[in-house]
C-alpha cells in the first residue's frame, strides 16, 4: 500500500525526497499518514480537497478485497 501511495503522490510534488509515510494499524482500520514538505501540502490536498479525495478513492479501490478500512491523512 505504501508503494501505491508513493506512486500516486511523489510525481505530484516538488520535494518527493522529503515525503515519508507512517503506518498505524488499528483494529478495524489502517491509517497511513503522509509527512510532506510544507510547500507540497496544498498540492496533495488540492482545491476543496479534490486531490486528496482522488488519492483516497484509488487507495480504497486498491483495498477492495480486504476487510480493514484504509485512511490516508496528510501532515506537515
Amino acid at each position, binding site marked *: 500500500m505504501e508503494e*501505491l501511495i508513493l506512486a500516486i503522490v511523489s*510525481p505530484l510534488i516538488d520535494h518527493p525526497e522529503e515525503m515519508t509515510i507512517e503506518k498505524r494499524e488499528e483494529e478495524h482500520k489502517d491509517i497511513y499518514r503522509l509527512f510532506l514538505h510544507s510547500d507540497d501540502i496544498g498540492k496533495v490536498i488540492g482545491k476543496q480537497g479534490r486531490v486528496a479525495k482522488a488519492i483516497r478513492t484509488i487507495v480504497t479501490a486498491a483495498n477492495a478485497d480486504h476487510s480493514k478500512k484504509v485512511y490516508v491523512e496528510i501532515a506537515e
Partner: protein
Amino acid sequence: MKEVTTVGQTVEEALQSALQQLDTTEEQVEIDVLDEGKKGLFGLFGQRPASVRVRKKADPIEESTAYLLSIAAQLGVHPDIQVEKTGKHVRFSLSGERIALLIGKRGQTLNALEQLTQLVINRYSTNFIHFTLDAENYRERREETLVALARKMAKKALVTGKPVRLEPFPSFERKVIHKALAENRQVRTFSEGKEPRRYIVIEPKSV
C-alpha cells in the same frame, strides 16, 4: 536514456554527438555547456576538449503514461494505453484485462485517475492540456446510460406532475443530462445542492 555528457573538439560537435546518442533533436533537450574547450597553441599545447551535458526535456505524454501505468501496476493491472492528441486535448484509452478495477463503481476510480493524471500532464506541459481518460469505451457507454436515465426520469416527472430529484452526479455527467433534456419542451432541468452532492431536478413545465 535521459541524460548524457559528451566531449568534442567544439561545443557544437559535442552537442551533435549527444543528440545522436539520445536519438533526439535540439528542440527537445536542455543543454549545459560544461566546458567551452580550448583550441590550444598550434593545436598542440593546452588543448582541451569541449564538453556538454544534454538532458531530454520531459515529455508530458510520456510522463503521464508512465504515471498512470505505475499506479495501475500497483493495483495489479497492466493496461494498454492508446493516446490521441488533438490540439490541447489529450485522451488516453485504456484496454486490457481487469480494466473494471480501474473504472470502479460508477467510474469513480477512473475519474480519480483522470484527475491525478491531468495534474501530472500539466506539470510537464507549458500550455494547459485538457485531459480525458477512458477505459474500454466507458465514457460513451456511461453517456448512453445517462441519456436513457434522463428520458426515463423526465417521463416520470410528467406522469406524476411532480419534480424528480436525481442522485448526485459530477458536473460533466450533469451536463450530459441537462443536454439530453434541453430540447424537451415539457420539462425543465436545474441543479441543486453543493458539490460534490449537487444533483439535478427535473420539473414538469407548468403551462
